[in-house]
């Protein structure tokens, strides 16, 4: 309950409903509320956090599940012109383990990208022709071409990106941030997840654990904001009672709970009263958040017409901006469909068409609202794709590739117009400035004002952290 305006609103409200009671409980109960401990769950940061002044107040992470091809989108490789259809040299592969899908392949012919690359912005950042909108904000981007990871399959890889560990059970990045930094808003959850409606029929499934809280208390898990049914589960009254009736019900519940607290003394009861109040506020704040009718036409010029379609990537990007404005700390959008084991040439343009405009618009929009400076935006998948062909080179697909891939970051504390890290001529191994997933996590926490080695939680006798015992902040990409 950080917000004094909100606080006084609540008190007035309580005064009203306790005052209305014909029972004499009003004054006593109010006194109890005033002296009650603050609710445990929602808002407080851990003592000592942030560790230092943050560069970013919030994160918007556009996760591209399935793994987009760095070869065709980001990592410009003129060297592949000559190498096209040649066999990948064994010393370059150097024993890299392959997935069960290409392990049986006799040949590994290199295939260059069929898409053209061009330079953008003052920085001259190379990007694929499939990303025309992103080109428009190139000078705000930091493109990291030297990411690498350990996992070679989707489930462990995406679990690693989300939680710093390949096997299930650890808290997700967003839940660590909520746990460490608390909430900036009392009207919305501090960690919200949105899923783009999936249309690619080979898309990888995703799972609750990706925004789960692992061994952290479960209130820190991500809350799904859905594009079908209730935007937040159980938000709406299925009986469609009007707001006044709902308020009456709530007041009766709170009066009885407050009365009970007086006798028992369990502070948990006061917390429950406060949570019912927040639930009531969410019944107003969430529909207000989701009501994009108040957006001017210019918004849809920027994000594209599909931003009017709930469940589209552009819509979720727009919602991400609206949540950022309302104090949500960690916003994650999951977009599926990048797992192109065949026909990269046909499939990639479909996916970039779904994602390019919205992603770029989000950057531009945050910038025009002067929010990019303290909002960290991230775009990327769970690993990269092989430079060699999976299947017939004429209709080539690309298999999973952990050794190098690209993601981009922008905003809060990140240097714009920077292409960071290099891969070798084959786009197979990192050649310079490697960034491991643990480093990526350490850097995000750093930007949020957290020393990744000091945000820990003791579980089963061990002080766990997001970065395990690894991770270095990537100084080279900081503004």
């Amino acid at each position, binding site marked *: 309950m950080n917000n004094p305006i909100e606080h006084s609103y609540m008190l007035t409200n309580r005064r009203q409903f306790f005052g209305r009671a014909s*029972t*004499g*409980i009003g004054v006593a109960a109010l006194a*109890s509320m005033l002296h009650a401990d603050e609710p*445990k*769950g*929602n808002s407080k940061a851990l003592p000592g956090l942030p560790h230092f002044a943050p560069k970013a107040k919030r994160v918007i992470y556009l996760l591209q599940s399935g793994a987009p091809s760095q070869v065709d989108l980001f990592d410009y490789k003129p060297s592949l012109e000559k190498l096209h259809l040649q066999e990948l040299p064994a010393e370059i592969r150097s024993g890299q*383990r392959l*997935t*069960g*899908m290409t392990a049986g392949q006799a040949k590994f012919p290199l295939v260059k990208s069929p898409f053209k690359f061009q330079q953008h912005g003052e920085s001259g950042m190379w990007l694929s022709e499939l990303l025309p909108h992103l080109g428009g904000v190139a000078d705000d981007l930091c493109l990291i071409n030297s990411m690498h990871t350990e996992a070679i*399959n*989707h*489930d462990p890889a995406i679990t690693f990106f989300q939680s710093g560990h390949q096997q*299930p*059970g650890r808290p997700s990045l967003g839940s660590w941030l909520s746990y460490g930094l608390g909430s900036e808003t009392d009207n919305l959850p501090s960690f919200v997840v949105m899923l783009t*409606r*999936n249309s690619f029929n080979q898309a990888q*499934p*995703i*799972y*609750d*654990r990706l925004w789960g809280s692992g061994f952290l*208390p*479960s*209130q820190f898990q991500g809350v799904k904001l859905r594009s*079908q049914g*209730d935007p*937040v*589960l*159980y*938000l709406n009254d*299925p*009986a469609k*009672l009007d707001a006044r*009736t709902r308020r*009456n*019900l709530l007041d*009766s*519940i709170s*009066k*009885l*709970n407050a*009365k*009970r*607290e007086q*006798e*028992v*003394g369990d*502070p*948990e009861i006061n917390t*429950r009263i406060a*949570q*019912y109040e*927040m*639930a009531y506020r969410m*019944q107003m704040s969430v529909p207000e958040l989701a009501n994009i009718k108040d957006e001017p036409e210019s918004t849809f010029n920027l994000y594209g017409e599909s931003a009017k379609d709930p469940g589209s990537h552009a819509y979720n990007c727009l919602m991400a901006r609206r949540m950022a404005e309302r104090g949500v700390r960690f916003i994650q959008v999951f977009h599926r469909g990048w797992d192109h084991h065949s026909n990269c040439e046909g499939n990639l343009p479909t996916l970039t068409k779904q994602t390019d405009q919205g992603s770029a618009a989000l950057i531009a929009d945050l910038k025009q609202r002067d929010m990019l400076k303290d909002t960290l935006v991230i775009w990327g998948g769970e690993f990269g794709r092989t430079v060699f062909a999976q299947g017939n080179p004429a209709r080539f697909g690309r298999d999973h590739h952990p050794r190098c891939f690209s993601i981009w970051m922008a905003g809060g504390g990140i240097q714009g117009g920077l292409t960071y890290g290099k891969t070798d001529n084959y786009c197979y191994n990192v050649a310079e400035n490697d960034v491991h997933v643990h480093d990526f996590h350490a850097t995000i926490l750093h930007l949020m004002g957290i020393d990744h080695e000091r945000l820990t939680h003791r579980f*089963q*006798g*061990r002080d766990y952290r997001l970065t395990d015992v690894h991770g270095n902040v990537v100084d080279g990409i900081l503004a």
Partner: protein
Amino acid sequence: MQRIILLIKILAVAGIICTTGLSKAQESSVTFNKDIRSLLSNKCFTCHGPDTNKREAGLRLDVRDAAVARLDSGQHAITPGNIATSELWVRITSDDEFTRMPPAEHGDALTESEKELLKQWILSGAEYQTHWSFVTPTRPSLPAVQRSNWPENAIDYFVLAGLEKNELTPTSRAKKETLVRRLAFDLTGLPPTLDEIDDFLADEAPDAYQRLVESYLADPSYGENLASSWLDLARYADTNGYQYDTERQHWVWRDWVINAYNQNKPFDEFTIEQIAGDLLPNATPQQVLATGFNRNHGITIEGGVIGEEYRTEYVMDRLITTSSVWMGLTVGCARCHDHKYDPISQKEFYQLYAFFNLVPERGQSGFQPQMQVTSPLAETRLASLAGRINDLEAALPAARKDLSGLEKWAQTIKKNGSTWRIQTPVSAKSSGGTTITPQDDHSLLVSGVNPQKDIYTIESETRQTAITAIRLECLTHPSLPGGGPGRHTNSNFVLTGIELKATSTADPSQSHVVKFSEARADYNQANWHVSAALDPNKATGWAVDGPTRKEPATAIFITEKPFGFEGGTKLSLTLRHEASFGTHGIGRPRISITTSPTRAIAFKGLDAAIVDAATIPATQRTAEQAKLLADYYTSNYGPAKSIETEIVRLRQLQSQGFPPTMIMKDQPGIRKTHILNRGQYNEPTTEVSTGTPGALPPMPGESENSRLGFARWLTSSGHPLTARVTVNRYWQTFFGNGLVKTSEDFGNQGELPSHPELLDYLAVELQQSDWDIKHLHRLIVTSATYQQSSSVGRSKYLRDPENRLLARGPRMRLTAEQVRDNALAVSGLLLNTVGGPSVYPYQPKGIWLELNNRPGYSKAYPQGTGEQLYRRSLYTFWKRTVPSPMMKTLDAPERELCTLKRSLTNTPLQSLLLLNGIQFVEAARQMATQVLAQPLDSDQQRMEFAFRLTTGRSPDELESNILLDALRQQNETFKNDSEAINNLLSVGDYPVDTTLNQTQLASWTAFCRILLNLDETITKG
């Protein structure tokens, strides 16, 4: 070790004669286990502990001999009795940041009081003690207490001694109605019935409470309640986890757990059978079934995985789960290196691992070995099924005559909706000589020879004109391969072409081919979309993932323009199966036509004749139409329908065999076990054989060198951990926290027990009672400690918020399962039958498919109907990647891993669930129905009845006033608002009692929603 045990015995004896003053004096001296161990463990062991690979400067501080030895530097870390020559002291007190320990990058410096403790300890001789939990417990004597009339049993002496030491007094006994409710939830997971409460209140015999305890211990719900928490430990789920999270059938094992608890299987047998029942001499099928415990881990089916990587994870999971559950040890920390804090080396980890490493299994899709075993609950279950079917059948004749809802239903039928007329085939031929047999439902069942290619020609007639589309339903049938829709052995079909010819019956010379403009299907296999059936290409067509999806599929073909001759039309439909895949015919087609406008056409739709009858006033219907409508209504919508559906389902359950359950099995010699470098599956180093950690007592000499020997070792009398860990976890379920708060860690980093003697007393008691779990539970709930009131007022509450000293009774929110079961029980909806397959209660639409909509690997949540919606929550289908949101919101874990203690949070999402979840709104309505059905005279009486249902007690005057106010408010709201009434009462599937005054029912429903949301309702107080 012997010496230490003796020492503890002496101390225990001394404890009896110690006065309070003396024990205080004793307390001030510094001891290793109490003061020093956790300090060294936290601050020093990372670099100077058991891990040989990370040991700095050759110094280890976890063993006295090493800590006092001369170091390479010539110094001594600890010189007992002398701080000046103890380098440890010099280093921790150094002003120089480069010599000071611990180094800044390893966390916070020592506080002054911590330094003082170390100083006192070194000065007094730096004596070490074995870590408390590694010493075999002995039965301590009861401590002396002042308030000697308070204790009811041994537990209370230990608790009271603690209270008196802290100058606290116990809280008085809870009120009887509080006690019965607390006891009912703790033992059965359900609220007491009002009769149970009344009986107990009226029972003034001295043993009234004891008898109540016995009746709950004997209730079959007891086993369900205990099983519920065991499933968290066992990471039980109904799906395989990982990426695709496909379904598994493992519930027969769950039945085993329920039954074991209800039979009060001694905990040592419970342990041995679950870990190694397969290895017992002459193992019974039930003992083998028990080993399903260690097959509850996730199993991946992801295409690209390397099998050995995942098989390794499964073995790790078994070892880590088993060690956590029975020993409270975090052995997993020694997977990659020697344990940092506890005496478990990496080698010892892999020696334990070897016990679990002989299962003949694979990493990818490793669902073997399995065994088909009958549920131990089968007999009771079959009897209860038969009883329920009898009851339902008896109710059926009356229900069939009940047409009271017909007109209301008829009004909901829209003229312009999607309607279909099922065609009765006049003839049906196969080009390949297969047998086509018309069925009562006008479908055609195909059987007999199964040619490579087959063309069916089906003829039928209609009098309709302006036909806009035809529908082809491909139904399933038990006689078809796999019970699916197609004739191929994998249940698939491929429809490569479809043609329709229309001929006038009045003038057969008028005839034309009907062209289709569009085809759509409710299910298309990837790359086999139904539109391909319209093109002439024989290589393409419509298929439906028969191998993975044994369900019906429906296609609709929309005509370019409406057709149909005045005076009747003969339809000749040709279905071609000419793909290169042979024997892919449709198994049971059924043809319908429609005249609905194209935009209204849907896959499902009413029979057009029904619509015709329903949309004219009752008085104008012909007798034929009235009968048609009545028949349709009773068999599809009326009260008889739900009874019939339920009977069919129950009969299916009756006839169902038990699915094979995954079990453990050893195949000696199948593989060797190696230490894995960094825990990586592909980096084996030294070979090891089975063994237990050296810091624990050895396996008894005669034991089998196998999982069975390991299981027997766990429950051997000298094992210091199993009984303590078990007792502690049960204590946790009653009191919220264990006596050791870190119930998941009994190692060096775990917390010390709040009442060490009590823990040991109970551990020994459990062992010496032949591991009698009900005896342990009886002991706990009959203690004065347990029976204290939890209502103590704020200041006392805040003095000990977590109730570690136990100066009051337990008070905590019910578990997720209990919150929902409570709502079902107080509303009379709960169907309390024990055991069986998992069920699918209410869930908001789309939750499964929004995460995974990959054809062949995904499906929509198949929400249940009828009584499936009202079973106890432990039977709720548990999908690991998307657990039931009702359970998840209330802190249930995902069960991807063993969970030893759930969070207990208090969130707005929980409020929303209880306020708005259909399950809870419906429960409120049925609770109101019950209230109104009581022979009560006034709202005051009804209000008290309802309040007692959810809280177990009567409201006081203030509460009565608030509640009556609320009721008046709701009466005002619903008076004259039929829409609001209908909106509220129509939530949920359970039929509304239409004999009640609906305004009154709505007001009381709203009122009961208040009650179901009270803190007190969802709290065990």
